[in-house]
């Protein structure tokens, strides 16, 4: 629940700063190793964004893959491995970030207000 809340808080703050009346689209990227279930995140977000300017926003969630880097030969793989095909040990990079990347919102023009 709390990532959903952090997303909502930040989105609403930015909507207010920009004088937006509705948030249309939110893009979030989640590292796979955080074990965040996108459906669960979306469900929570829907529940808590009711009656806010973000209630009808599209929530786009992309999962970021972790990478493995071989400590011996330097080769890089796009998934989690402990051993490289060369026999070397692999180090895991990334996969633990969660980023609120982009927000699209609807803003009133000056003439709309008249």
């Amino acid at each position, binding site marked *: 629940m709390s990532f959903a809340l*952090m997303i909502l808080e930040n989105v609403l703050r930015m909507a207010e700063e920009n004088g937006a009346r509705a948030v249309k689209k939110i893009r979030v990227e989640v590292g796979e190793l955080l074990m965040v279930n996108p459906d669960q995140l979306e469900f929570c977000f829907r529940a808590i964004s009711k009656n806010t300017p973000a209630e009808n926003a599209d929530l786009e969630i992309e999962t970021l893959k972790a990478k493995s880097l071989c400590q011996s030969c330097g080769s890089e793989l796009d998934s989690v491995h402990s051993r490289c095909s060369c026999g070397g040990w692999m180090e895991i990079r990334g996969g633990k970030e*969660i*980023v609120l990347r982009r927000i699209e*919102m609807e803003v009133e023009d000056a003439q709309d207000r008249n």
Partner: protein
Amino acid sequence: MHRIEIEAEINLMNENRRYARENRKILRENGAVAVNIMGAIGSGKTLLIEKTVEMLGDVKIGVILGDVVCSADYSRISKYDVCARAINTGKECHLDAHLIHETLKMMSGLDLILIENVGNLVCPVDFDLGENFRVVIVSVTEGDDVVEKHPEIFRLADVIIINKIGLAEYVDADVDKMERDARKLNEKAKIIKMDLKLNAGLGEWIEFLRGVLDVSRNSGRSCRT
């Protein structure tokens, strides 16, 4: 009416770190020590808290229980004369700094806050709660390779408890191997071999807590003068 697009680029992990810093500040102001107790489901987290509460009758204790759905642990703890709060984490597999923030703010006038994290050896690692000490409790019934299989959580622990040692012979677990694995991963941690049913190792644990409470009390006193 027109649409605008904002590149927000907000790293929400930093938000957790920000709340963790705030939590740490609240604890400092309240003169309380917080202990984050992590471990797999059924490793003995709640029983450790119950025994601790029984043995530290003179200490003002608060307990925060990170419960996935039901509040069985909460009813176990609320029998005691302590300030207990359950945090329903939904399907979340860990507590985070933001989830406990409001609860911590309400818990003033306490010396020690014990936080039972959600039963899991993987996810809680990445979330600093603002706690002062991290404890990992594993039981021999999880298999004596449980330590080497979850290196990260042991690397970051201040205290590693190997629990249910009385059952080791029945499940063919090598307690000394578990201790060696833990030591290999973490040079500094205090390692305690324990059995909560046999009251083994509890003295060492209580001694550890009394030690950190003394330090906290003394530093609090020098701050205020």
